[in-house]
């Protein structure tokens, strides 16, 4: 009886005074849920992840993530779980394997190929351009250029 009273007293003392603000904060779990939710797609929205989406389904899916984390599943397990149920579609980006390599590498191949092509073309044009006496005079320095421009305008 005595012990119970002491425990109760301690409990009351340990709770903050009513009227005093209670500072709430994110738990580690909240942060983990967010990290995972940002990588999963809301299946009823247009390319929105389940963290940012306000759809009820996204809310449910966040709940699933939270419950599984609570049960001790690792983020990898949870990802696998969603992958097994929805396929690649559920990830916010296509995995870099198989035909998807085209998507990931395509722009860079284009940039590199285009760059090389342009380089060769430009070099070719430069070579074919006759260095005739009509070729440009050596570039004017800034002062002269300004004066010239000014004269031409006025």
């Amino acid at each position: 009886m005595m012990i119970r009273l002491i425990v109760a007293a301690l409990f009351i003392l340990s709770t903050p005074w009513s009227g005093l603000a209670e500072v709430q904060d994110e738990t580690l779990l909240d942060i983990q849920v967010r990290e995972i939710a940002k990588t999963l797609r809301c299946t009823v929205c247009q390319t929105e992840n389940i963290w940012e989406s306000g759809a009820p389904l996204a809310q449910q899916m966040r709940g699933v993530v939270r419950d599984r984390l609570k049960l001790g599943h690792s983020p990898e397990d949870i990802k696998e779980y969603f992958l097994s149920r929805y396929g690649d579609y559920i990830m916010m980006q296509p995995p870099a394997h198989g035909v998807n390599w085209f998507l990931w590498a395509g722009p860079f191949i284009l940039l590199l190929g285009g760059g090389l092509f342009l380089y060769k073309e430009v070099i070719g044009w430069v070579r074919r351009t006759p260095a005739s006496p009509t070729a440009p005079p050596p570039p004017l320095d800034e002062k002269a250029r300004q004066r010239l421009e000014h004269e031409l305008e006025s």
Partner: protein
Amino acid sequence: MIIEIGNFSVTIALVLSVFGMASAALALKTRNADWARVGRMALTLIFVLLGVGMLALVYSFIVRDFSVLYVANNSNSKLPFFYTVSAVWGGHEGSLLLWVFILSVFSTLAVWIHWRTQPTIMPYLIGVECAIIFGFLCLIVFLSSPFERLLPVPLEGKDLNPLLQDPAMVMHPPMLYMGYVGFSIPFSFAMAALFSGRLGEEWIKVTQRWTTFAWMCLTTGILLGGYWAYYELGWGGYWGWDPVENASFMPWLVGTAYLHSVLVQEKRKMFKVWNLFLIIVTFSLSLIGTFLVRSGVLTSVHSFATDPERGLYILIFVGSVIGIAFGALILRAAKLKSQVELDSFISRESIFLFNNLFFLVAAATVFLGTLYPLILETFGGGKVTVGPPYYNAVFMPIALGLLFLMGIGPYIPWRKASVANLKKSFTIPLIAGAVMVALLAITGIRNLYALTGTYVVAFSGMAIVMDFSKVSQLYAQRNSSNIFNGCLAAFTANQRRYAAMLTHIGVLVLVIGIIASTIYQTEKVVSMKVGDEMSIGDYRMKLTDLHDVEGANWKAAEGVFQVFEEDTLITELRPQKRIYNATQTPTTESAIYSINMGHIFLTMPEVSPEGVAVARGVLNPLILWVWGGGIIMGLGVILNILRPRKREE
């Protein structure tokens, strides 16, 4: 009755567009200017008739005539007046009508403005514009009319999508469409050049202001869309690489390439085919963008199949525009072979070529990312999602390359740059970049994107400042005036150049805003009851009240949060969780406080009946730079358009 007048006017406009095309053809065949005058009259009448059609639809919305199917689907008796007007372009049918109406305004203006100076071009311009108008009006009249009646008449409308009930969304579609449609003017002039064989620089010079204006509208439209997404969708970001956003970004990227590339043709008479190619691609992407957004193809290939007629028509229409344009280009290509004269690899000309390459690859990346899921699904490759992580990894390096080119391009002379020249222009900017990066590194910033981005921005910014100050000093000396007047003189004497540089500065400011607000965003989500506090960054937020409020067509739970910095109260934020009555759709209304050029952004994604609110606080540092950068860009473009006409033109 009114709606029938609208329907009738638009149908007559369709007939007149055929008439316009015919008279344009006759004007070309008979070489009789009277036929061109008839065409001009037809085009002007189309503008008036489509205006009547728009007004009829606006009127039906204002009087809330739910016997009109489109009105019943997109408004409600409780919808505020302001949004009843913007509801006109809240759906597929009405936005197509707005598109073609803007097109008629622009093409009529163009014909009247250029009538005296470009008489030989006019029949082509009238013909091409009437053909595009014809294509759109066929779609509107036969397949997606906003004028259809609904029987039996419902007592109440379904309401406009609550997310669209927002001031930014009122302006976003018209701005975007003015951008898309604006590109139709240089496109038509380009077509005229191709058909007529007058392939000089004339058409580019004539349309330069149109192009710039279109570009400004498109940029503003895109930024307005981002601004809307930022405070209306409530996740604290402004750009999600959503297919709809991408659809407007693609024409912007190619249009920007075109905007730069034409300078080479103006100055050096080179790259004629290339510029024609770019404007054709820009306008084609504008058409594709319009239809992608409205047809629902993007969500799934299946939605295309639910409305096969409309889908098929769109495909044929866009296909024939692209086909005819490219066909003409290929046929003329031989005649267009311009003598390319390049004196050096390091010259303004070749920088412009690489600028174009980067812009095109950027556009191709967005195109690929947007359509990849569709393509894969069509060929049975399963469903995938291409979201922001993809673009962050692939698009960002390309964008950084562009920023770097932006820093060097304007200071590399035409024809040839000497080493001395390069040293003089770029030594200090290179050092400035390094100093900025060192400063950031000292303050503990380690993110590679942030550091590279800062380097490039500091470099480009310094190059602009150096050039302008040097020239200003020269002008000050020459006029023996102070440096302020020197700046003014330098600017007005080279307004086209320095207005463009101002736009470049706007881009740099925007980029800083993007880097800071995406990489250094802080976010926290906490469940709170009245009296609870949460802390985020240097701020504390206390929920002091949670109550219900009611608007014209919605009810909401509103939280009152006091925001403290240390112990001083700085503001009170009131985010809402709204439910719109007619559709029972929930929305989260964010509450925003600006501080130190950044935002404290607060939403309440969930409120439980027991009085527990889930509060989501986001700190977006320097986000005002994103919008500020946009405003500076716009200012630069306006100064460019308003520059006095000089002999060069």
